């Protein structure tokens, strides 16, 4: 019942905050968001003790599992099935860590309709927690779509000048993507016919891996698999986002207020890669392997093209936004490698990127709060005026570039090792792609160093009328917490990596992608 308690507390907090007066909403939301954080940390600490092992979809033993009958719809039973394995628990913890920090980061920029803002933030947290813990497709899909609603409002109400356009674009893009994915998955379930009697993800995975898929409406099983795979791949790919489905992301990011950007990049993009890992790569490993070449190309293009786009930007926030496209490309590369280092590294990269991109957006937000500009050309020499913020910004940027002893390095290292060793593609093809993708790091280093050198260092200059002073304590504190976490995970990746490896081992074995 621990997961239910977590969801209930978060939902209740959202209501309380929504009804609270504006004056106290921010502080109340922060305090209440510590409850799910405490809960998830407790779950992390007792994860081993629950005897959880293996992958949730491949017959693993789950932590905090609940399975209750909900409703029978036609031949398919829908159940309330939640539980955690080594892949979902880290993401759950990431969500509860980032929420209080982004609430803190909202205290300064959000000055209107606070209670609604913080209520929606907590509601979004609840939905995200649901996405990472649900194991029945229907329950999962409800939470998945529920995330869109608060995000739509958060961008549309509190965003920048083009917020309405960005909110609608985001809503329509991701909602159509969900529909495509939904149809793909349901077609797969219908194709299984009588061999499954529920929308339970482990049951469906087992049936699929046992080759029980028969055709549907004149389409044979193999074609159905491929069609469903790509419907889901496109649906999830929009959320990741992969090139060419990435165009909603910069708009949404630039218009979204800082705390929302943190949640968007830090957690919401991970929904896409998490779903790819859970659905495409776990349920249809054969198809993923058959089309590994195409997926690898998509991954490398996302890495390089995203980085190039970032290089061309002059808005600090856009730079960070496009660099997300690039970093998420590494996740796809790790997944397609299909071995323990690759998939494990991909999962670890979700966490690492969640922390680092959250950190970067937060730092850009703090700079924007003080200078009221994000244009690289408008400022220089900020280091003298706001040393702590700048120090953390630089540290975060180094994390992004993959400096050793930071979380990003560990993640990318695992991914590259996995991709080099992978036998999914014949010969050294994937190694070749990996080499190309690694070039992305150089570009990342390029644009980050370039941007930092021009904005943070050199003589002080600012082309707006605002006084630049040190940021408030509550603005800087979350930055410091995040950088400490990034370093902690870089020094000691085993905080999460052990359980991740344990959970992805079965996947690596199915496809024989090597260790």
């Amino acid at each position: 019942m621990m997961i239910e308690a977590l969801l209930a507390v978060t939902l209740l907090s959202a209501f309380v905050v929504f009804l609270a007066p504006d004056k106290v909403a921010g502080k109340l939301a922060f305090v209440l968001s510590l409850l799910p954080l405490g809960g998830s940390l407790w779950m992390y600490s007792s994860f081993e003790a629950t005897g959880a092992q293996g992958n949730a979809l491949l017959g693993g033993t789950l932590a905090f599992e609940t399975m209750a009958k909900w409703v029978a719809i036609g031949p398919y039973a829908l159940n309330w099935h939640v539980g955690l394995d080594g892949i979902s628990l880290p993401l759950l913890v990431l969500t509860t860590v980032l929420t209080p920090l982004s609430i803190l980061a909202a205290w300064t920029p959000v000055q209107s309709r606070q209670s609604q803002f913080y209520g929606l933030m907590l509601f979004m947290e609840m939905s995200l927690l649901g996405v990472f813990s649900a194991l029945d497709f229907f329950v999962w899909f409800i939470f998945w779509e529920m995330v869109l609603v608060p995000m739509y409002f958060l961008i549309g109400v509190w965003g920048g000048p083009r917020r309405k356009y960005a909110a609608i674009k985001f809503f329509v893009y991701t909602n159509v993507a969900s529909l495509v994915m939904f149809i793909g998955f349901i077609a797969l379930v219908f194709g299984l016919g009588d061999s499954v009697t529920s929308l339970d993800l482990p049951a469906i995975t087992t049936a699929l891996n046992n080759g029980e898929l028969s055709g549907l409406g004149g389409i044979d099983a193999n074609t159905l698999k491929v069609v469903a795979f790509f419907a889901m791949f496109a649906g999830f790919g929009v959320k990741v986002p992969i090139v060419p489905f990435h165009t909603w992301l910069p708009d949404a990011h630039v218009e979204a207020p800082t705390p929302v950007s943190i949640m968007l990049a830090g957690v919401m993009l991970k929904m896409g890669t998490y779903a790819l890992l859970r659905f495409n790569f776990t349920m249809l490993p054969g198809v993923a392997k058959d089309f590994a070449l195409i997926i690898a190309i998509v991954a490398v293009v996302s890495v390089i093209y995203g980085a190039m786009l970032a290089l061309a930007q002059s808005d600090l926030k856009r730079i960070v936004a496009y660099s997300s496209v690039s970093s998420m490309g590494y996740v796809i590369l790790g997944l397609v490698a299909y071995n323990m280092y690759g998939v494990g590294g991909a999962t670890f990269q979700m966490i690492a990127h969640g922390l680092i991109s959250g950190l970067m957006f937060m730092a850009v937000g703090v700079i924007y709060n003080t200078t009221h500009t994000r244009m690289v050309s408008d400022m220089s020499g900020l280091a003298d005026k706001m040393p702590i913020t700048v120090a953390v910004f630089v540290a975060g940027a180094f994390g992004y570039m993959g400096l050793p002893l930071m979380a990003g390095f560990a993640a990318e290292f695992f991914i590259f090792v996995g991709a080099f060793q992978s036998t999914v593609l014949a010969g050294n093809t994937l190694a070749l792609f990996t080499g190309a993708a690694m070039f992305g790091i150089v570009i990342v280093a390029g644009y980050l160093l370039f941007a930092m050198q021009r904005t943070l260092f050199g003589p002080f200059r600012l082309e707006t009328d605002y006084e630049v002073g040190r940021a408030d304590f509550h603005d800087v504190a979350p930055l410091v917490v995040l950088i400490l976490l990034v370093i902690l995970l870089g020094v000691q990746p085993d905080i999460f990596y052990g359980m991740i490896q344990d959970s992805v081992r079965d996947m690596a074995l199915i496809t024989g992608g090597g260790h």
Partner: protein
Amino acid sequence: MAQALGAGADWTAMAPAIVLALTALVLLLVDSITPDTSNRPLLAGLSTLGAVVAGAVAVLLLVSGTGDEAIRLYDGALVVDTMSLFFTLIFTSVTALVCVASYDYMKGRPYQAEFYSLVILAATGMTLMANSNSLATVFISLELASLPSYALVAILKKNRGSVEAGLKYFLIGALSSAIFAYGISLVYGVTGHLQLGRVASNLNVEALPGILGVGVLMVLGGFAFKTASVPFHFWAPEAYEGAPAPISAFLSSASKAAGFAVAFRVFVTAFPIGDVATTVDWVLAFQILAVITMTLGNFAAATQDKVKRMLAYSSIGHAGYVLIGLAALTGGNDDWVMGGAMMHLLVYGFMNTGAFLFIALVENWGVGRTFEDYNGLATKAPIACVAMTVFMFNLAGLPIGAGFMSKYVLFGAAVGAGFWWLAAVGAVNSALSLFYYSRVVKAMWIEEPEGELTIRSTPTGLYVAVLAAAAATVLLLPAFSPVADTAINAALTLLG
């Protein structure tokens, strides 16, 4: 063997209808004792109580399994089964919400006692419609539901829109009643009986195929009017827009459900498709109706600039979804198809009533009628706007409430019955509908108000009704299991 009233204790199965009829009489009595009374708490309280008690009795009967075996009364002219009780629950829930909301809406308006008694009388008629098992009782109860509705639409006598809408509704209603009655007479001419089961057993398709076919199609036309389906939908936007908003809610949810209740029973029981398919393939007719109705309703809704009118057209679109319940029969998945339609009607009863009651709230505030007038409403009344957001997203089929679930069952059942193209048209329409539903949401939350937006009051009754409808819409999602079971059960008792 004729069954008189009181034979055994069977008539207790009619208790919901009886409670409603008594309530209406008590309201009339109150009005005769103190004419022109404006004791709003008494009137609204009495009528709400009546509806709630009737609904509670229906639930009790459902839970006790009374309707599992169809109870036939008055020589089979009325029947009580799971389906009629399920629909009674829909009517009484909507009626209760409407009565609570009218407490504020009718404040300071004339004819209050008449208003409430007409609402309850119409609800009685609807309940009887669900119980009707003979073409005669179908016609009578349909008129009992319709006549009060005409008066209710026009009850704001000083308001031109209201009177015009009432007149239009009445004229088209009278016309379609005539068509319906003529259809009944043709069916009677062929089969020599009015009771639905006997009609089926007396069907002699070879004898007078043309007359039977025309009769069935005319009966179908009568239902198309009541459910606001194409091509008898023209009255709906006018009537819903002109009527007092609680009455729009009442008509578009309860009255429509009543139309479907009869349509389900009459077509399945009296004209078994296996027997009449050679003469008149009504399943095919409903397929055409369903596709045209949902598409036309949704496209027309997308082009409106008044919120109430948009909702009126979207309500036509939803009638199209529910028509799948008849259009996808014979696919070997009948219980799910029809059960899905019933589930959608129940959920729709809450979300659509809630949406119209929110409009009643806005009308009460004196904010305008267009999307622009709703701009920035959320800054003034966030809680009511949350409720409206819940209604809009549920009507569009986003999974934050039971609206997604019932649509999913309906479309899934159609796919299961092999009518995947019906489901596809429905899904595309549903995706399109998000566009115009989210316009309301966008106006309320994201847009800035153009002038000074003032909200004068917080009417308790309307708030209670809107929030109750929102809570029911959301809570029906986790509690969907009993709804699904009952609806499937209802469909099974009907399909036999």
